[in-house]
Each structure stands twice: as structure tokens, then as C-alpha cells.
């Protein structure tokens, strides 16, 4: 392909710093908003990562004295809330914003201003959450940051047990972040259904776009239970309502149902974008089209459909009826089927491919291994009797960190290495990238492999310290040592971004020899994305363009 050079004044001109910043604030361009989302997510990722490091420092040795218990409670609450609502959600919104219009040949999202609104309302939510450190004391002078855990079970959130304003900041911040997520989900769906370029039928869209559309649909139905529950909690706290007040006939378990009715689909909302990235990167780096593309789409839809009916597997220990338990065990185990299909499809894509082990692919391979283990411990926990034994233990902590860090974050890092050249025009350094990967993988396994055993040996989650002599010393020490490696990995990552932005290798339009539309425009793309969109006849338009003798559309 010939390089496309679009002369564009705003990119050629070098505006002064205030003007440049002002442009970022008032922007409604999907690419800039996408980058804002991702930058905010990475910022909060570092903040919440530092919190995790302090938590691990406290737990490294028995009778740890690094921080007092009340600060420990705030740290694990803020760490969890931040990672889910201020890292995972904005990251997926950022990816969707940046890539969906480019991949379907659109000039922008369907509603650019709604898009900007979504980002800024999310950022306000994030700031409110951290503002609680200053203002959480409230008029009563109690508390600081929220300390009720990221799922904030009643009656811990009632006025009696959670004085001051910290829980109110938590509630408001999540409500606002949720509104932002819904705004961006509506935008993605409208963009996908109404803004595709000529020839880009729904079926020809890249798997990434199809999966993010499904995710957006899930957001539409899964976020409202959380918003509604937060409104009820506010009614309880501000107006003296009794939704979750057991003393007046209310139900604490209802909060758990509402929260997990959001909370479990949320896990799939977070991890499906990871699958989406893997489904773009693995084929390109294996030099083969995606194996079993229709099965991939079907599996995604099945995960979404079953994913909304498994929530109470978080509640086996609450004491539900045997029938309810059996239903949720069966539903949860069923989800392993479509997920397994996906893993096999990725493996089959790599099988006999000409694999290039560049950093994006390296992270995807790490993801495959780690997500497999995460899935297996997930099936173990899905069995109610096993869960009765290990619920609220470090086994659960290890399981979901395997899903979200070992699974999701690895694919998100892969996506950064893969699309950074498109967004900035510069390649990320491969050596630093490989250091980043290996240090993170080693650190991740050092931290979370032993924690499975800590859980099996009886260590409950959320304890701020433990007495010596229970056999937990070694696993905890190893887990904390792992944090050092992970921290180093993130340092290499941050340094890689900064140094590559300054003097990275020029990327060119299509550094990975990709097949989807975003590689057909310049790097970085001009404000209007495409002066001319190539003809779309198949799901790999750039393959057709590069290989006119053997185009995809003959077979699709």
C-alpha cells in the first residue's frame, strides 16, 4: 500500500501549550476522547497499583505494622473500586472510541458531543471518589475514604456503621461513572448500526467491533441494576429510607442480588474487550485468518446471554434454596463452554501459523495461559460446596486477579503495543516491551500463584494482618516479592511510552501488515479518519487490497 499523507493544518501547526491543552478539553473527536479515556485509565491503574503494593507490604510478614487497620480497609476498597470502575471501564470505552469508527470506516462516533460528555462525567466520578480522602469526614467528622469494600454489602453502608460522607462519595462516584459508561455504550451501538461505510455489513465487521457491540449491549442492561441500587442506597442514607434496613423489614440480601446482577455481567463486560483485542492480534501475528469466526461470534453472544444469569454464584454462602444453588451452579458451569470454544479457536489460529513473537503477541500468549488457569479455578469455585469452603478466602482473590490482571490486563497491554503505532505514529521499543512482559509475567505468577494456596490453607481475604504460625508466612512473603517485579515492569512500560513518544522508530501506516481498516489510513489518522475508504468486500478488506490474486471475498 502506498503511504497516505493527508495535509492537515491542525497536525502540521505547532500550537502553544495552553492552546493545545484547551483543544484536548473541548475536543469531540473520537480519537482524542479515546486517548483521554486510556490515559485516565492508565493514570488510575498506577494509583490503584501503588495501593495494592502498600497492601502487599503490610501483608508481607505476620503482625505487619506498615499501616493501621482502618487505612488498610480504605486501601482495599479504593483499590477494587478504582480498578473496576476507573481502569477497566474507561479502558474499554477508550479502545471502543478510538478503534470502532476507524475499523468500520466512519469519520466519527454517532454522537460526538455525547461522547465528550461521557468522558468528562466519568472523570468527575473518578475525582469525586478520590476527593473523599479530603472531604470524607463530612460534618460528623468520621471516616475518610470509603472503607466498605468494593461491593459494599449492607448493612455496612448504613448510617450507623458508615458515618461521615465517605460512602456517599463512593455511591455518587460510581453512579456518575456508570452514566458515562452507558453514554459510551449507546454511542458505540449507534455508531455500529448507523455509521458503517459502504459495503461494511454487520457480518464483515472485525471481530473486535462485533465483540464490543455485544459488550455495549451488556452495559445497557447490566449497569442499570447498579445505578438503581446506588439510588436506593442514597435514599436510605439521605432520606432515611429502609431498602436495605433489616430492622424495618428491609433486606440486606436484596443489595447483594442487585449488586451482583450488575457485578457478574460486569466481569464479562471487562474481559470481552480483552477477548476482542486477542481476536485481532493473534490472527495478524500468526499470519492466518481467525479460526472459526462464526463460532467466535456465537460464543460471544452466548457468553453475554448466559453471563446475565449467573450472578448469585457470588452468594452461595448467603444461604439460598437448594434449587437456586443448583440453577446458578449449572448456569455458571455452562459459561465455560463458549469460553472454551474461544480458547480453542485462538489456539487453532496459531496452529501452523507463521507466528511472529513481537510484544503484542507475547502478551496474548501470556493471556492464553493465564486465562485458562483463571477459567479452571472459576469452574472450581462454581461448585457450591467448594465455594462454601473457599468463599471470601485468598483463593477467590487469586482467581479474580488471574481473570482481570492475568487475563484482561495482559490483552490490554497487548492492545497498547499493537495500536500505539497507529495512534502516535511511533513504534514502542521492543526490548523494553519484552522486559515489561517478562517482568510482569514473573511478578504476576510470584504474587498470585501462592495466594491460591493461602486461600486453601484458610487465609480469609481483607484481613489486615495475621498471626505467625499458621503456615501463611512463606506464601505471603513470596506474593509480596512478586509486587517488586510487577512494579519494575510498569516502570519499564511507562518509560517505554515516554521515550518512544520522544524518539521512537517511525511506524508508518501499517507496521504489522494488518488486515483491518484502521491500517489503511495514516498514523496518526487525520481528524476525518479517511479521505477515501477502500472497497469493502470481506471481513479483511486490506488483505483483499494487498492480495488481489487471492482475495477473501471469494470464500466468504
Amino acid at each position, binding site marked *: 500500500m502506498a503511504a497516505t499523507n493527508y495535509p492537515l493544518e491542525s497536525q502540521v501547526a505547532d500550537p502553544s501549550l495552553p492552546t493545545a491543552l484547551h483543544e484536548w478539553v473541548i475536543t469531540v473527536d473520537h480519537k482524542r476522547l479515546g486517548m483521554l479515556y486510556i490515559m485516565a485509565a492508565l493514570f488510575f491503574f498506577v494509583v490503584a497499583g501503588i495501593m495494592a503494593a502498600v497492601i502487599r507490604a503490610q501483608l508481607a510478614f505476620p503482625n505487619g505494622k506498615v499501616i493501621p487497620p482502618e487505612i488498610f480497609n480504605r486501601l482495599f476498597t479504593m483499590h477494587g473500586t478504582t480498578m473496576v470502575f476507573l481502569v477497566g471501564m474507561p479502558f474499554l470505552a477508550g479502545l471502543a472510541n478510538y478503534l470502532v469508527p476507524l475499523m468500520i470506516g466512519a469519520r466519527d462516533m454517532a454522537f460526538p458531543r455525547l461522547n465528550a460528555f461521557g468522558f468528562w462525567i466519568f472523570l468527575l466520578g473518578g475525582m469525586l471518589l478520590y476527593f473523599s480522602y479530603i472531604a470524607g469526614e463530612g460534618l460528623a467528622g468520621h471516616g475518610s475514604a470509603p472503607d466498605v469494600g468494593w461491593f459494599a454489602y449492607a448493612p455496612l453502608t448504613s448510617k450507623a456503621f458508615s458515618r461521615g460522607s465517605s460512602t456517599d462519595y463512593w455511591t455518587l462516584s460510581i453512579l456518575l461513572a456508570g452514566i458515562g459508561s452507558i453514554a459510551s455504550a*449507546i454511542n458505540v451501538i449507534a*455508531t455500529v448500526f448507523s455509521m458503517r461505510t*459502504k459495503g461494511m455489513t454487520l457480518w464483515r465487521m472485525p471481530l473486535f467491533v462485533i465483540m464490543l457491540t455485544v459488550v455495549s449491549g451488556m452495559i445497557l442492561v447490566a449497569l442499570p*441494576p447498579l445505578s*438503581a441500587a446506588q439510588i436506593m442506597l442514597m*435514599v436510605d442514607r439521605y432520606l432515611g429510607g429502609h431498602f436495605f434496613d433489616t430492622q424495618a423489614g*428491609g433486606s440486606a440480601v436484596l443489595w447483594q442480588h442487585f449488586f451482583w446482577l450488575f457485578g457478574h455481567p460486569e466481569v464479562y463486560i471487562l474481559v470481552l474487550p480483552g477477548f476482542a483485542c486477542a481476536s485481532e492480534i493473534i490472527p495478524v501475528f500468526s499470519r492466518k485468518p481467525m479460526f472459526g469466526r462464526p463460532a467466535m461470534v456465537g460464543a460471544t453472544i452466548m457468553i453475554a446471554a448466559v453471563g446475565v444469569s449467573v450472578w448469585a454464584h457470588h452468594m452461595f454462602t448467603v444461604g439460598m434454596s437448594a434449587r437456586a444453588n443448583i440453577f446458578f451452579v449449572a448456569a455458571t458451569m455452562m459459561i465455560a463452554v463458549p469460553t472454551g470454544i474461544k480458547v480453542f479457536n485462538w489456539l487453532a489460529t496459531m496452529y501452523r501459523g507463521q507466528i511472529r513473537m513481537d510484544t503484542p503477541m507475547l502478551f496474548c500468549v501470556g493471556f492464553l495461559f493465564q486465562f485458562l488457569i483463571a477459567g479452571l479455578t472459576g469452574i472450581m469455585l462454581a461448585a457450591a460446596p467448594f465455594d462454601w469452603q473457599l468463599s471470601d478466602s485468598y483463593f477467590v482473590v487469586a482467581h479474580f486477579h488471574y481473570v482481570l490482571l492475568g487475563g484482561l490486563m495482559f490483552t490490554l497491554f497487548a492492545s497498547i503495543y499493537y495500536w500505539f503505532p497507529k495512534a502516535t505514529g511511533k513504534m514502542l521499543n521492543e526490548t523494553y516491551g519484552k522486559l515489561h512482559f517478562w517482568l510482569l509475567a514473573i511478578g504476576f505468577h510470584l504474587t498470585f500463584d501462592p495466594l491460591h494456596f493461602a486461600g486453601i490453607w484458610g487465609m480469609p481475604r481483607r484481613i489486615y494482618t495475621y498471626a505467625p504460625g499458621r503456615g501463611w508466612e512463606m506464601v505471603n512473603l513470596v506474593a509480596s516479592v512478586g509486587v517488586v517485579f510487577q512494579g519494575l515492569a510498569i516502570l519499564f512500560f511507562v518509560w517505554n511510552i515516554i521515550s518512544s513518544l520522544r524518539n521512537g522508530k517511525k511506524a508508518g501506516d501499517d507496521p504489522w501488515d494488518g488486515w483491518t481498516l484502521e491500517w489503511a489510513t495514516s498514523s496518526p489518522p487525520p481528524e476525518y479518519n479517511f479521505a477515501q475508504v477502500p472497497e469493502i468486500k470481506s471481513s479483511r478488506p486490506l488483505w483483499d487490497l494487498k492480495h488481489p490474486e487471492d482475495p477473501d471475498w471469494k470464500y466468504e
Partner: protein
Amino acid sequence: MTAAETNLEWRQPDRGRVGVICLIITEFAVFTIFVVAYLFYIGKSLTGPYPKDVLEIPYISTFCLLFSSVTVTFAEHALKKGHAGPFKMWLALTVGLGAFFLGATGQEWNKLINHDHLTVSTNLFGTTYYSLVGLHASHVLIGLILLTIVLLIGLRGNAMLSNARRFEFLAWYWHFVDVVWVIVFTVVYVIGR
């Protein structure tokens, strides 16, 4: 690509239409949770007043709100045909009916608070009742504000005539508010009483 496909014009749904449908889906999900909470808590109040003692079925205001869905459809059709006069009349009637509904809700709440001494914090019934009905009333209020803005624009000139597409979305939202009221009415005044 088949020959038929090449000849076909490239047509996609209106983005506003897709967006409004998504908004309505997500709003329905919010209401579903509040309705579930209401149903779950029926008869669980430990103290009075109870629904059967204090709630009166709001026939008239319900009829007004349902009828306003009809009038807004007439307004929509008038706008599509470019008849400015009938459009304004039907729209004004819609606003009036919606405002009457809100007024009736206000009066009902006034009676419940001052006469029956039922507030959000009195008992579980009060908490769920005010939350569910209040959530719906706030949606009526939003719809009413939007309809009023359109009416004011319409009264100042005929700028709305070129915006029939946007008015259609507002009408959809208004129908949604109506449908939700049918559910809320059934749950609160029929099942819950």
C-alpha cells in the same frame, strides 16, 4: 459481492433512532429493578400506614397521561404533514395533560404526607412507594420540560417544522414514560393494594 448487492443502495438505520431505542432499553432496566424491589417488599412493612389504608386509585390522572400519548401522536403526524397550527394545538394539549398528571401526583403526595403522615422514612412501604412513583414522576418532569421547550420554539415561529425527526424521538420517550406508568400503576395500585 453479488450483483444484487451492488445495485442496492447502502442504507442504515437513523442513528438518532438507534440511540433513543438504546436509551429506552437502559431506562427500562432501571425501572425493572425498582419494580422488583417494590414487588419484593409488598406486605413487608412492619408498621403502618399500609397501602390499602391510604392509597386511592388515580383514575383521572392515569387517563390524562395515557391520553397524552394519543395527543402527542397527533402532534407528530401534524408536524410531519407540515401543519403548524394543529401541531401547536396538540402539543399544548399534551403539555397540559402531562402537567395535570404531575399536579395530581403532587396533590396525592401532599395528602399522604400531611394527612396520612407517610414519608420516605416512615416505613418500607413509604420508601418503596416514593422511590418508584418518584422515579417515574421525575421522568414525566423531564419529558414535560422537553415538550415545553419544543412548544415554546413552536410558538415563536415554525422552526420545528424542519425538525420532525427529532420530535419523533421525543414522542417515543413520552410513550415510554406512559408504558412505564402502566406498569407502575399495576404494581402499586392493583397488585400492591
